[in-house]
């Protein structure tokens, strides 16, 4: 059952090792290593921040904060806790969600109009293949697209909008227990889709 995870890890081993080396060089104060790390992951992180915040200036700020944090904390990165890419995605998402929550606390008005003006239409789907294989990425995208709304929407609200399960329950007017069950089912399905690509 877990063979896929090992295989996925093997597939990503070279990239992960390059990232770890870059972080070691960053910890030693080498700016060029930060540039290389940026070149490897900025597109993925920017796309994520932009999807969450839907405003370019905010997404740029989030990336600047995330890479600044990576630069300052490079010496504290623990490889045992996961990949550098995973760390960057977590930091970026978390900062973007924080910013989104702050924005929700602000009164609506000009900022919303500004965001509407900057709303990004979905360009053609492109995939960054540095982290998981092309086949895996395609499978996840297909699996996401194939999900019924009742399963996909709660997941999107949780991951891209940062809503808690109880907030999702309220927003969708669906009992909390049902939301929890659906989200677990959805995540298993995606995990299996990833597994299917290497099985």
């Amino acid at each position, binding site marked *: 059952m877990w063979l896929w995870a090992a295989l996925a890890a093997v597939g990503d081993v070279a990239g992960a090792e390059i990232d770890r080396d870059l972080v070691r060089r960053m910890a030693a104060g080498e700016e060029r290593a930060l*540039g290389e790390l940026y070149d490897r992951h900025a597109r993925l992180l920017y*796309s994520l921040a932009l999807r969450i915040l839907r405003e370019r200036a905010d997404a740029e700020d989030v990336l600047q904060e995330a890479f600044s944090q990576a630069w300052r904390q490079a010496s504290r990165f623990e490889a045992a806790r996961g990949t550098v890419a995973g760390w960057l995605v977590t930091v970026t998402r978390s900062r973007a969600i924080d910013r989104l929550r702050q924005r929700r606390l602000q009164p609506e008005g000009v900022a919303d109009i500004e965001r509407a003006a900057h709303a990004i239409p979905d360009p053609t789907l492109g995939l960054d293949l540095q982290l*998981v294989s092309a086949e895996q*990425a395609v499978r*996840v995208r297909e699996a996401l697209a194939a999900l019924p709304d009742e399963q996909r929407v709660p997941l999107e609200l949780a991951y*891209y909008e940062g809503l808690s399960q109880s907030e999702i329950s309220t927003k969708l007017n669906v009992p909390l227990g049902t939301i929890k069950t659906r989200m677990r089912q959805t995540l298993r399905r995606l995990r299996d889709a990833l597994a299917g690509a290497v099985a």
Partner: protein
Amino acid sequence: MTTTYDHDALRELVALHAIGALSPSERDAVDAHLATCAECAAELRAFAPVGMALAQALPQVDPPSSLRTAILDVARHDRHARLGRPAAKVPVAYAPWLAAAAMLVLAAGTTFYAMSLQRRIQSLESELQEARSRIDEGERRVQVALRSAAAAEAPLGVLTAPDVRRIDLAGQPAAPSASARAFWSRSRGLVITASNLPALPAGRIYQLWFVTAQAPVSAGLLTPDGRGGLTATLTTPSDVPNPVALAVTLEPEGGVPSPTGDKYLVGLAN
């Protein structure tokens, strides 16, 4: 109040933890549990790629190239600040250096903030520029609208002038079926409507005249539409001698100082 979770409940939360979708209290509980439960730790590792895949399944958009420069600039300033930072145990004599290092660290933080602000300012300036363009466009449209309104209002001004006079013009042998009606106000100008005027020959135009006791005075040029009709509002000299009649003649294009061509319309001013 603290919620307590058993193993099964926590295991259920691990998948959500992997995509960062837990509340802070749930996250803390799962983290504490993961330290002691190998099964749940393995479960977390199994779900970890899902969060990454959710980011990768998005449409990928390139960040602006200026962002890379900004991020590297911050690192450079920060590194300079770091290099200036003294060791933990500092002799008193190095106190000024400590202060300097502290200033550099502060400067790095300030630089980051300043750069962030600078990018924000650039973004706002560009939006301001767009807004200004929209305002200019809006003002231009208002001017066009005002001119249209003024143009529409001009005939009304003539027609409602206290000194308005109506002069009917009849077709002459050159255009027996033509006719026209003019409203003239010395203070506000002249409005004329005409019908059945023959089409203009090439290089020719109709010219309207105040026929006075002295020499005729031009009141303006007239161009009929394709069906021989026209409506025109003309600005006329307010010092024109009292006219005895209005006349329309066919003249060379551009008009002439005194009439030379055939009369097409004539009307007596009462």
